[in-house]
C-alpha cells in the first residue's frame, strides 16, 4: 500500500513539471508570453535544480550548507570553459553543451567530495560557516584567475593576461574578473525542463533506496545509525557530493544561458546560497515538491511585483519574515491547530 502511495506522490511531482512545460509551450505559441517571462524560464529551471539539490543536503542529510552557490559556480565555469576550449574540436554546440553538462557535474561533484571530507566532521552552525567560506573562496579564486590556451597547452595566472606567457596562437579563455565571454547560448527551456526531471529522478530515487534510508537515518540519529553498522562518512559524503554535482549541472545551464559569465557576489556569492536555502526552508525540509514550488513562486514574486518598482524587494523581505513566523512560530502553530479544531467542530455540528 505504502509503495503505491509513494509512486503516486512522485508521479504527481513529475506531472507538475511536465504540465508546466506544456503550459509554457501553449502560452508561447499563442503569443501570451511576455519577453520578461521568456527570459525567466531558464533561470526558473536553474533555481528549481538548485533548490532540489540543496534539499538533499539540508533536508535529507540534515546538514546546513551555505555554500551551494559555490558548486554552481564551479559547474558554470568548468562547463563554459569546456565549451569554449572545444570550439574547434567539436563543432556542434549541442554536443559540446551535452559534454559540458557532464563535466560540470563531475567537477562540482569531485569538489563536493574534496570539501566534504574535511568539512563534514563539523556540526551544525560550524559546518554552515565553513561551507559559506568555501563558497566564497571558490567565487574569489574564479574571479581572480586567468587561463589561456595555446599550442603548448594551458596557462594559468593570478595576475593578468600578459603574464600567462602564451605564444601567438594563444587565446585567453578565463579573463580574471571579466570571466568567460562568448559562450554560445545553448540553454533552452526544454533542456532546462529535461534537466529538472533528471534531477528529480536522481533525488527521488535516491531517497527511496537503501542509500537514501541510510542518509536519513544519519540525519535522524547519528549514534543509532552507527550502532546498526551504517558508515556515516560514506553516506554523508555521498549525499553532499550528489547535491554538489547537481548544483554543478544547474551551473552549466547558467553558464550557457548568458554570453558572458563572471563570478560576482550577486550570482555566486553567499547571498545566492542563502536565497536557495530560503527556497528549501519555505518549501519544507525534505519536501522535494515543496522546494520546486517555493523556488518557482519566490523567483516569480519579485518579477510579478515589478510594477511596485522600488518597493518590491521590501515587500519580498516582509513576506519572507511573516511567512517564517506564521510557519514556524510555536504560538502560530498552536493557534492554527486551535483554528482547525474549531472548523472541524463546526462541521460536525452542522452535520
Amino acid at each position, binding site marked *: *500500500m*505504502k509503495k503505491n502511495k509513494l509512486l503516486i506522490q512522485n508521479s504527481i511531482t513529475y506531472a507538475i513539471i511536465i504540465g508546466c512545460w506544456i503550459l509554457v509551450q501553449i502560452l508561447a505559441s499563442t503569443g501570451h508570453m511576455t519577453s520578461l517571462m521568456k527570459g525567466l524560464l531558464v533561470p526558473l529551471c536553474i533555481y528549481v535544480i538548485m533548490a532540489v539539490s540543496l534539499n538533499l543536503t539540508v533536508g535529507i542529510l540534515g546538514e546546513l550548507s551555505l555554500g551551494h552557490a559555490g558548486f554552481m559556480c564551479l559547474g558554470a565555469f568548468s562547463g563554459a570553459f569546456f565549451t569554449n576550449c572545444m570550439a574547434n574540436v567539436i563543432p556542434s554546440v549541442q554536443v559540446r553543451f551535452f559534454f559540458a553538462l557532464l563535466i560540470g557535474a563531475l567537477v562540482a561533484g569531485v569538489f563536493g567530495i574534496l570539501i566534504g571530507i574535511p568539512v563534514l566532521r563539523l556540526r551544525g552552525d560550524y559546518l554552515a560557516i565553513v561551507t559559506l567560506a568555501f563558497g566564497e573562496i571558490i567565487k574569489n579564486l574564479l574571479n581572480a584567475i586567468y587561463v589561456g590556451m595555446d599550442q603548448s597547452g594551458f596557462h594559468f595566472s593570478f595576475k593578468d593576461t600578459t603574464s600567462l606567457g602564451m605564444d601567438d596562437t594563444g587565446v585567453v579563455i578565463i579573463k580574471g574578473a571579466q570571466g568567460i565571454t562568448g559562450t554560445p547560448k545553448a540553454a533552452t527551456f526544454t533542456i532546462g525542463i529535461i534537466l529538472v526531471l533528471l534531477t528529480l*529522478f*536522481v533525488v527521488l*530515487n*535516491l531517497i527511496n*533506496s*537503501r*542509500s*537514501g*534510508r*541510510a542518509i*536519513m*537515518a544519519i*540525519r*535522524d*540519529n547519528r*549514534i*543509532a*545509525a*552507527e*550502532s*546498526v*553498522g*551504517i*558508515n*556515516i562518512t560514506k553516506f554523508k559524503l*555521498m549525499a553532499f557530493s550528489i547535491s554538489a554535482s547537481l548544483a554543478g549541472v544547474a551551473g552549466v545551464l547558467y553558464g550557457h544561458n548568458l554570453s558572458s559569465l563572471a563570478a560576482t557576489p550577486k550570482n555566486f556569492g553567499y547571498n545566492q546560497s542563502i536565497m536557495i536555502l530560503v527556497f528549501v526552508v519555505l518549501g519544507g525540509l*525534505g519536501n522535494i515538491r515543496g522546494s520546486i514550488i517555493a523556488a518557482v513562486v519566490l523567483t516569480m514574486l519579485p518579477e510579478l511585483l515589478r510594477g511596485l518598482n522600488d518597493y518590491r524587494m521590501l515587500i519580498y523581505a516582509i513576506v519572507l519574515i511573516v511567512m517564517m513566523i506564521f510557519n514556524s512560530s510555536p504560538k502560530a502553530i498552536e493557534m492554527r491547530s486551535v483554528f482547525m479544531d474549531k472548523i472541524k467542530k463546526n462541521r460536525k455540528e452542522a452535520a
Partner: protein
Amino acid sequence: MAMLEVKNISISFGGLKAVNDFSVTIEKGQLYGLIGPNGAGKTTVFNLLTGVYKPDTGTILLDGKNITGRSTIEINQDGIARTFQNIRLFKELSVLDNVKVGLHNHFKYSTIEGILRLPRYYKVEKQMNERAMELLKVFELDSVADYKASNLPYGAQRKLEIARALATEPKLLLLDEPAAGMNPNETAELMDTIRFVRDNFDMTILLIEHDMKLVSGICEKLTVLNFGQVLTQGDTQTVLNDHRVITAYLGE
C-alpha cells in the same frame, strides 16, 4: 567457547575511573543481567563493548575474536547490536524503514542500481520488506509498519529498537534498560518477548535493568557493578541475596 569474554577492561575520564578492571564471561544462549546503582558505569560498559569508547586497558573477545579497539560499525558487523537507554529511533522514518536500515549490511544493492531502479533494486527491496515484516511481526508491530516511528507509543518504540537491533543479525544483543518507563503489564509482556528472542533467534543477551522483577524473572546470571567495579557476579538468586548487593543499592 564463550560468546563474550571481557578481560580486565578499564576506562577513565579526566582522572575518574568510570569502569575499573571489569571482566565478564557470557556463554552462548545465556540471558545475562548487568545491574548496579545509578552511575555505577553500566552504560559505559555497553559503550566500551560497542566501540563508542575504546578501553584504556583490557581485551574484549566476541565468539573468540578480539574486537578490542574496533569501531562501532565494525563491531556491529562482528555481531554486537544494542538498544539505548534514551530511545534512539530514526524518528522521521517509518517503522518499516527503521528495521530496513538495520538490514542495511545484509541486503545489498549499489546506489547506482537504486537510482536507476535496475531489476536488483526491486528484487532486494522485496526481500528486505519480507524480512523486515517478519521481524515486526515478532514484536506485533506489523500493523503499524507505515507509521512514523516517533508516532508510536513508548513501549512500542522500545520494541522497535530491539527489532532494529535484531535486523543486523547479531550474535550478542545488548539491551540498555529495556523496561524503563513501562507499566507492569508492558514489562511482563517484554519479558516474554526477550525470552522469545533468545529461544527463536538463538541469541545471547546482555541487559542492563533496574526492574528487579524483570531481572530475577529472566536473567540466568548477574554481574553487579558499583563505582565502576565488579561487586559480585554469579547465579541470579545467589547474587540478589548477597548482602553486599543490598547495601550497594540501599546504602548502609
